[in-house]
């Protein structure tokens, strides 16, 4: 009790200081802002633009896959003679687009949106903090991300174009690749620095700045998800930074960390000292990149948990089990990386180890997903736009997760490895899974950020259109993959007899992708239109229990809360018997 009282005192002092504030210049307020809400919005808008750009790269690739060798309409003439002479895509350009699509979507789109934008905007509000623990550091992480993004985009204009060795940059291919790869590495170092600083900031904020009374088991699940995510970023990214440094050395100082002895390129032996290990790159890369998968999915689970509890008007089913699962998931995610490498010849003993850990890690994911499904049972569901997205997340992530099991077992991975099945699997996790949840989150927290709701009709058109189209894009990939179509062929696999029967799906998938783009127009219009002219709503438009809705105005002022909130109850006290309203906000005191 003593602790809670003194924590309360510190908050009171801070609220007093809050009233003396000078007006900030435009530059300090909107460009180099240190306010977590504005930084969150900066992250959000930048990452949405990157998502759109990464998606556009894919739409160009889908033209090539559906109609190989035909000139690309509309933008073909503008792609440059070096990339697409006469508007017809060259294989080298296809490789650039593939590598950059992956890099942009993962490192510059989904992670900054899920962690940078939602984490920054929502976490301090949900824990009752006036801002992040280190506001200037927070600004620095955004700008490091921005510079990293600019470096990545500029790499398209260097001789030889952007990085073209896949988003995984496997050595020795990447070491010998054109100059764009160096830019990729430099860009990655900026993005990694950004993530590290951000992750550190989140952890300190969540541990140190919780409002009085907000104990660990009263934290909203979203905050738990962000906390575990931040630990993953903090501890998994440095090995990739190390790998990036080694690859930079290989490329610039001509060392041989990843180049084995006796390498012959174009019938000429390379003049290198040799003795390096291409496998080392893969280990270092996947040591990051597997936890990265959970960085992509955990914030989405957090968002979905918030939306589901709010729209079922019930507490989450098995909140504690979900919390323990997410912590266990975090630990285990560091011990599964080599299931990406069954094919590398690292040996059956190691494969057996990693397939076992992989099967173990599926358990907590299934617990979380089951808890979310069971939370629906017996509820009188409000089918709001954010809820539709959250509900779609459940089966989509389910498909993504279950199709991962055959890939996690070494023997069934053999026929599936490097086929479209793999692409289908992880896209179901990240695109119809995470992205659906992130869109739901935007519709859900938009009123908090702007004081206005997004249009419901446009939102529902966006949802149904996207839901149908996105399945049209990815479901046929399982069919192609099971038929054995390789994932990296720039003509979609025309030269392979075993691909003949399933290639007609390529046109279907491409039209679905373009349809998906069409339905995003509804979102873009809705987003900007609602900012200006959306319906004005009360501070707690969804009748929610968590602090960002119950205690802060919409939009929250600098410093977030007019009076520092205190917390008296768990995060999801909906439909508590004996109360008039069907929700009890976390900051509502218990009557004696």
């Amino acid at each position, binding site marked *: 009790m003593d602790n809670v009282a003194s924590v309360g005192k*510190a908050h009171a002092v801070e609220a007093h200081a809050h009233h003396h504030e000078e007006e900030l210049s435009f530059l300090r307020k909107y460009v180099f802002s240190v306010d977590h809400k504005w930084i969150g919005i900066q992250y959000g808008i930048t990452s949405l633009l990157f998502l759109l750009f990464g998606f556009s790269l894919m739409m160009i690739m889908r033209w090539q896959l559906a109609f190989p060798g035909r000139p690309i309409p509309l933008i073909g003439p503008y792609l440059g003679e070096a990339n697409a002479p006469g508007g017809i895509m060259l294989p080298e350009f296809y490789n650039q687009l593939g590598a950059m699509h992956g890099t942009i979507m993962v490192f510059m789109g989904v992670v900054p949106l899920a962690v940078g934008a939602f984490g920054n905007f929502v976490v301090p509000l949900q824990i009752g903090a006036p801002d992040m623990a280190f506001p200037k550091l927070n600004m620095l992480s955004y700008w490091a991300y921005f510079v990293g993004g600019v470096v990545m985009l500029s790499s398209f204009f260097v001789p030889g174009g952007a990085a073209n060795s896949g988003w995984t940059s496997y050595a020795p291919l990447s070491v010998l690749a054109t100059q764009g790869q160096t830019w990729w590495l430099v860009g990655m170092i900026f993005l990694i620095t950004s993530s*590290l600083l951000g992750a550190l900031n989140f952890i300190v904020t969540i541990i*140190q700045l919780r409002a009085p009374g907000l104990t660990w088991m009263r934290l909203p699940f979203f905050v738990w998800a962000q906390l575990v995510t931040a630990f993953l970023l903090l*501890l998994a*990214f*440095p090995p990739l930074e190390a790998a990036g440094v080694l690859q930079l*050395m290989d490329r610039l100082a001509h060392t*041989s*960390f990843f180049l084995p002895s006796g390498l012959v390129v174009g019938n000429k032996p390379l003049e290198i000292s040799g003795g390096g290990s291409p496998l080392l790159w893969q280990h270092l890369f996947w040591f990051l990149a597997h936890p990265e998968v959970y960085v992509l999915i955990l914030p989405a689970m957090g968002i979905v948990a918030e939306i589901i509890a709010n729209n079922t008007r019930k507490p989450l089913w098995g909140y504690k089990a979900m919390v323990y699962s997410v912590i266990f998931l975090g630990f285990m995610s560091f011990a599964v990386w080599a299931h990406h490498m069954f094919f590398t010849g690292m040996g059956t003993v190691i494969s057996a180890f990693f397939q076992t850990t992989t099967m173990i890690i599926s358990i907590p994911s299934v617990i979380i997903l089951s808890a979310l499904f069971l939370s629906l049972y017996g509820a009188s569901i409000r089918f709001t736009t954010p809820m539709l997205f959250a509900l779609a997340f459940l089966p989509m992530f389910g498909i993504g997760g279950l199709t991962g099991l055959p890939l996690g077992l070494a023997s069934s991975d053999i026929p599936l490895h490097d086929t479209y099945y793999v692409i289908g699997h992880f896209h179901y996790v990240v695109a119809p899974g995470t992205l659906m949840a992130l869109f739901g989150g935007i519709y859900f927290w938009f009123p908090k950020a702007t004081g206005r709701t997004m249009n419901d009709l446009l939102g529902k058109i966006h949802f149904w259109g996207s839901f149908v189209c996105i399945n049209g894009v990815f479901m046929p990939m399982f069919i192609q993959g099971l038929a054995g179509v390789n994932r990296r062929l720039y003509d979609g696999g025309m030269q392979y007899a075993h691909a003949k029967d399933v290639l007609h799906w390529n046109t279907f998938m491409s039209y679905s992708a373009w349809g998906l783009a069409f339905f995003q127009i509804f979102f873009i219009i809705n987003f900007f239109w609602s900012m200006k002219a959306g319906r004005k709503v009360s501070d707690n438009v969804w009748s929610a229990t968590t602090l960002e809705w119950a205690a802060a105005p919409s939009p929250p002022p600098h410093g977030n809360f007019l009076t520092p909130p205190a917390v008296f109850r768990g995060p999801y006290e909906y439909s508590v018997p004996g109360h008039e309203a069907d929700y009890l906000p976390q900051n509502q005191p218990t009557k004696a």
Partner: protein
Amino acid sequence: MQIPYTVEARPDTGLPNPKLGIWLFLASEVMLFGALFSSYILLRVSAPAWPHGYQELNVPLATLNTVVLIASSVTMVMSWAQLKMHNLARARMYLWLTVTLALVFLVVKFFEYGSHFAAGEYPEHSTFLAIYFTLTGLHGLHVLGGVIVNSYLAGPGAAMWRTEPEQYTNRVEVAGLYWHFVDLVWIFLFPALYLL
């Protein structure tokens, strides 16, 4: 608006924000150097032949550097202790001493690198030299970072002592934790690269 616990410790965690922050940062640094050390081990055990460090590198100079760095860790702690005893002048002296020792370390390293380059031993020469230059180079950058931070704290940053003595003391402590880590990395690098 003020962020709570920037100076005083939060009662239930017992830590002020910057101290938790620096420990987390050091955790990520452990992962960074841990990955590089693992790479070193992996490359070494899979190599058909690997030179001994003492045959290729200058052990006496590195021993001198080890002593210099350990001494600089001591002066760093002395600086913090002096602040705790409210003696800014001596604290600044010890900070400058730490900076000087760090610069001595870098100068020695500079001559070590120079003699390798003069002998035509570049990173591309062998994987041993490659990992040697990468690890010591990255460590050298960390030393340089420490020089910048400590110079700031001893120079313009010390003005904070007049208005916020406790926060200034905390800053020196946090910079000290980082500095000890940089020292510790060298303690691992020295035997791994020079002696084995």
